[in-house]
């Protein structure tokens, strides 16, 4: 018994020491990269890791992926043994405020890989770095670029002679036409009311200048009782009660999107991940295309701005053995050649500026690219990442009631205001200082 125990103990120590010795002196530095393995997989990441190793012979990259990467990383962060680089769903803001993340500015202000005349920061689409800035430093970078649009089937529109709307009036007129044809105008992912949040924020942006829009982002009192915010909420409520497919409020995202793909509904508001998510269900001949959230007549906002920004955030840990080298690998991932490979392989967009030029894109992605190229700027909302308590509480409940017609837009605004007041008063929740309109 004693002998078996000793052998087991010895084996355990050997295994632990193998793990502790991440760096093999013979192989140089080993960087550990943990990636959320979702719809986009990790094949592109692995290929880029191998390419990076060829460029840097002294560096080996141990890249692994898991759909539940968050659960695997949490205890390691507590033990101060995180990987060097990660992309996962952990609360980035909490990690930033706890001092767990490594600032990226030194690398961002250096020349980009393959583009020595501009910095890495300048090589990225404007606005994608604004979500995770703290005390003047940037802590996370996206590897994916997206925007919020309205998807439709070109073939259905052609068949019925329907035109893509530019204004909200044209949009509601189109919905009436679709309804008269016996088709539901809009599918909606009703089990997740926050799918209407991006549409609501887009409509609000169409109505007000950015200085007023960003009062929400700075959690200023009265942001949600702004008359134009209430007007945007009213438009969303009318859209829901008049044009959503019957039963939509009880549908999951896949159910509602299936309804759209099978022609029971004509349009659906969604991000650029829609095609990837539904690729096994899209029937032959289906021609996906999109248009931006229509302009609201009489609005004072930027009619060409588009709700969107970066996703699949990567960040480096300050407790990791090689944060500087990890950031360099991240910089490589977000350089022109890898970004072009990303777009080619995954049929989605990278935040590296102009990386999609010259690549043969699928018609639906080309449609989204056309929308983004025609836009003046991207804007996004950081409330979700900062205050999950607000998102899951006042926002979700309020939206569900608004869409179901159970509360008025004014009541909705008041509920959101009350929810945000709770956040402002809660000493346990970190509130970053006001940032105004990001440049």
């Amino acid at each position, binding site marked *: 018994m004693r002998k078996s125990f000793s052998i087991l103990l010895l084996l355990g120590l050997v295994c632990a020491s193998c793990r502790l010795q991440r760096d093999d002196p013979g192989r140089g530095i080993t960087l550990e990269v943990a990636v959320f393995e979702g719809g986009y997989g990790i094949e592109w990441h692995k290929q880029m890791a191998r390419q990076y190793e060829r460029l840097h012979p002294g560096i080996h990259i141990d890249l692994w992926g898991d759909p539940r990467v968050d659960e695997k990383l949490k205890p390691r962060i507590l033990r101060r043994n995180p990987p060097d680089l990660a992309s996962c769903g952990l609360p980035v803001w909490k990690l930033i405020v706890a001092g767990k993340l490594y600032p990226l500015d030194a690398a961002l202000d250096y020349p980009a890989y393959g583009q020595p005349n501009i910095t890495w920061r300048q090589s990225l689409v404007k606005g994608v770095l604004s979500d995770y800035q703290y005390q003047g430093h940037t802590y996370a970078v996206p590897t994916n670029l997206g925007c919020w649009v309205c998807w439709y089937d070109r073939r259905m529109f052609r068949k019925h002679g329907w035109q893509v709307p530019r204004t909200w009036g044209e949009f509601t007129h189109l919905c009436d036409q679709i309804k008269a044809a016996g088709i539901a105008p809009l599918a909606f992912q009703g089990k997740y009311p926050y799918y209407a949040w991006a549409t609501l924020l887009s409509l609000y942006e169409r109505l007000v200048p950015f200085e007023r829009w960003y009062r929400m982002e700075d959690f200023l009192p009265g942001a949600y009782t702004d008359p134009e915010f209430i007007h945007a909420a009213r438009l969303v409520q009318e859209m829901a009660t008049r044009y959503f497919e019957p039963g939509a409020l*009880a549908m999951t995202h896949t159910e509602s999107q299936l309804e759209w793909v099978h022609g029971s509904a004509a349009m659906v508001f969604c991000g650029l991940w829609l095609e990837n998510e539904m690729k096994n269900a899209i029937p032959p001949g289906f021609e996906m295309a999109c248009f931006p959230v229509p302009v609201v007549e009489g609005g004072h906002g930027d009619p060409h701005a588009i709700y969107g920004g970066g996703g699949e955030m990567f960040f480096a840990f300050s407790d990791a053995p090689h944060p500087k080298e990890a950031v360099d690998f991240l910089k490589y991932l977000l350089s022109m050649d890898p970004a072009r490979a990303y777009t080619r392989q995954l049929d989605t967009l990278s935040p590296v500026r102009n990386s999609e030029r010259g690549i043969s894109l699928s018609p639906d992605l080309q449609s989204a690219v056309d929308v983004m190229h025609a836009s003046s700027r991207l804007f996004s909302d950081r409330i979700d990442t900062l205050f999950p308590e607000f998102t899951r509480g006042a926002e979700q409940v309020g939206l569900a009631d608004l869409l179901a017609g159970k509360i008025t837009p004014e009541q909705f605004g008041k509920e959101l205001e009350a929810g945000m007041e709770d956040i402002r008063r809660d000493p346990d929740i970190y509130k970053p200082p006001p940032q105004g309109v990001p440049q």
Partner: protein
Amino acid sequence: MIKRNDFQRPTPNAQRPKRREQKLFILTFLGPALALYALFVLLPAVNACRYSLLRWDGLGTATWAGLHNFGRLLRSGSDYLPAIQHNLFLTFVPGVFILTLALFFAYSIHQGVRGARLFRITFFFPNIISSVATALLWIFLYSTSGVGLLNNLLKRLFHVSQPIAFTETHNLLWAMVPMIVWAATGFYMVLFLAAMENIPETYYEAARLDGASSSHLFRYVTLPLIWDVLATGVVFLVIGGLKMFDGVWIMENGRPSPETHTLSTLMYSRVFEEYNVGHGTAIAVLQFVLVLLASLISMRLMRRERLEY
């Protein structure tokens, strides 16, 4: 030849080695289980109580919060009290139907209704399906898209043109009642049936001779003699209702709202999604107290004079 001492009690000294042996015997068999129980149940429970007194996001440094987390739960506007209401709803509303149906089915089978064996299997079958599979099954049943059986039936049989959103947030708790009743009735039926089958037939014969009808037999013979088992069933129902997690979580697709949260889903959401470990474990501690109190109250209310036969 019999000696006087053969019939005398062993001396205290002689008893000690025997008691020591007994204790060692008991410890040998109970020890490992107790150790595992302490390691995987007691120790985490004590830790949870400790975390409930801290301000901690599970990632950074924890600071002392005292009773702050508990105070937050009990103040007005908190999600905690509505979550308790939802738990109580999911305990009592399905509970009434479960007990009634289980007693009815068990008694019918006990009385020898035709096809009793088939009914026994049929009614118990839902109980062997996992709760996750049950919830997924009912999601499809309630679906408002083309695959929804219930909405399709309503459309074809009763010409209901607009599908009913059974699983929409505002309707979800009521929609869960048939699901819970369907899943749980079989278990309680088998429990009560086993108790009924232990009742000697002579009691029924004697009652029939006195002119008792079927309902009299049930009320004055069966029910009192299975009361202990019924009380146990009630306690199980109360504990199950107060711990409800998977049904709500699955039917809300992992995002319950304050209108559908139960204590367990609220706790999970606070700890693992909002990263508020202190607040979440405070919910767990209060839930433990609530379940304990509810069980004790149920047992007290159901207590009556024990009948032996």
